[in-house]
């Protein structure tokens, strides 16, 4: 196991190096001049030169690339041109909102997705199954922000159950925190659960036709025990994959939801950086999210053997 982890970590090096190169090239190989974009139309020649040298764009290409890698490897993701603060300092206070939303959203998604998926597989080819599948395909055909609007309109404006927008930090009490986060989390969950339902259903259907399920039923186990203990455990891996990938790519999904609900999270940071053309922040975020993505993928692979003891590394 340790050897396997070491090998996998080693295999990450080239991918991460490429991620770094791509993030670097994004700014330096596109046919546009980031310094000019950032300076705007009204900047003087001196201001433009100043921004250019502040970004290091006046140095040779490979020197720039070398400096960029040195800086990233030291854990420095760059400095915002707009605020002058380091990207890491900008990210830290926004982590709570994004992580809370991600966990809460994924929790609801698993809750809905698993139960609907199991139900659909158990009652395969009945109206229950068809309804669950309809829920799923509608779920991933919807623009997530539109779903957010409709939920706001229904559960905050027409029925004032939840606040319309905004974020209440955890330090101001658990209940207000959860209340403010429920609609955004539900918005994420409805879209995320669409895939979980599909995956759970197909994975469960496969397992339910196996011999040992027939054996379990034949020896008189309760249907609940058969489904939950025998079938679900064997069907867990594909579901685990989907959930893991969703967690890893959540920042992207969350960008839109954070914008809809005006939540001060990492997504807002990116959107603001993009409207301000604050390229170091964009680059830093790209790197940070890519690293998280790659690591989560590794953790999923390791989790397989926990869920399914037949897999050994």
């Amino acid at each position, binding site marked *: 196991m340790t050897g396997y982890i070491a090998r996998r970590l080693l295999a990450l090096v*080239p*991918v991460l190096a*490429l*991620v770094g*190169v*791509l*993030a670097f090239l*994004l*700014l330096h190989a*596109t*046919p*546009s001049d*980031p310094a000019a*974009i950032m300076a705007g139309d009204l900047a003087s020649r001196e201001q433009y030169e100043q921004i250019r040298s502040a970004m290091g764009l006046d140095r040779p290409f490979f020197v720039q690339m070398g400096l960029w890698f040195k800086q990233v490897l030291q854990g420095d993701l760059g400095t915002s041109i707009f605020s002058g603060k380091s990207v890491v300092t900008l990210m830290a206070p926004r982590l709570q909102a994004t992580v809370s939303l991600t966990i809460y959203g994924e929790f609801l998604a698993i809750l809905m997705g698993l139960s609907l998926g199991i139900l659909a597989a158990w009652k395969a080819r009945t109206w229950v199954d068809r309804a669950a599948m309809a829920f799923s*395909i*509608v779920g*991933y*055909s*919807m*623009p*997530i*922000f*539109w779903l957010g*609007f*409709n939920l*706001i*309109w229904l559960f905050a*404006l027409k029925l004032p159950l939840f606040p319309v927008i905004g974020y209440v930090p955890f330090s101001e009490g658990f209940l207000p925190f959860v209340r403010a986060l429920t609609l955004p989390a539900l918005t994420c969950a409805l879209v995320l659960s669409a895939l979980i339902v599909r995956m759970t259903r*197909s994975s469960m259907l496969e397992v339910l036709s196996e011999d040992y399920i027939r054996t379990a039923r034949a020896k008189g186990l309760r249907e609940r025990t058969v489904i939950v203990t025998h079938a679900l455990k064997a069907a867990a891996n594909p579901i685990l994959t989907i959930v893991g990938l969703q967690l890893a*790519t959540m*920042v*992207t999904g969350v*960008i*839109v939801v954070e*914008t*809809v609900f005006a939540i001060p999270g990492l997504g807002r940071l*990116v*959107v603001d950086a*993009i*409207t301000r*053309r604050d*390229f170091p922040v*964009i680059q830093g*975020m*790209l790197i940070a*999210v*890519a690293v998280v*993505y*790659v690591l989560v993928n590794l953790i999923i692979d390791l989790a397989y053997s926990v869920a399914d003891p037949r897999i050994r590394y």
Partner: protein
Amino acid sequence: MVAGAATVGALRWRSRAGTFAQFVLREARRNPNMAAGVAILLLVVTMAVFAPLISRYDPVALKAIDRLKPPSAAHWFGTDHVGRDVYARTVYGGRISLAVGSAVAIITALAGVAIGIFAGYYRRVDNIVMRVMDAFMAFPALILAMALIALLGSTVQNVIIAVSVVETPRMVRVVRGVVLSLREREFVGAARAIGAGPLRIMRVHILPNTMAPVIIQATFVFAGAILTEASLSFLGAGSPPYIPSWGNIMGQGRTYLQMAVWVTFFPGLVLMLTVLAINFVGDGLRDRLDPRLRSVM
């Protein structure tokens, strides 16, 4: 021969099997979801193409006296905050959304096939290409697209480029996977044995066999690209605000959610129905052309 070509052929109309109308009816009965999808899609495309004939209003004409009017006989979807007819804007907006979706699907398919076939056929290329694709896929799609648009400028053309860049790696993976198994098949070995060069093998024996999965994946890219364009426009990094697209109509309407929910509701509903229709078509094509792909896509 060529199993894939035969499976694409599974959906081909042949005159000896009856008239075209009979063929369509038979297919529709076999897969009602797909038939519904095709019907909705045809309707939306017709609306977008004949937009000037369908809407009575100019989608960009301001009329302050008609601000935020609810849906009525005169304005089916109501009016927005500057008195523009939301129905007219939705009909015209479909042009941008469908154009972006189809352009991205075509570019992605072409790029994916070209890169995927070479990567799958030459093992040495494969290692390098797939690591680059892995790196691309590690980036969050929406952030990468937004960053590209920020660099290139907010035009419809650049939105197409950015979304294509984001969608291509997945297509490459699909094509490469198919090619990897094809190159071990007997008919490829036979072609090599009679002296066919690699380019000929790729073009004549491998390319046709990748068509079914490529077409299926392309429909899902089409649907995904429409959603991505909408998200980009909503975030203000998509098509320019003076050209209505489904995304930016909703983006501009969000401030008025409390007073005029129709400005965001209707364009979103049309968008959802369109994407739903495309997904139905994609699912239907997959089940019809290549059911083995069910677990992959």
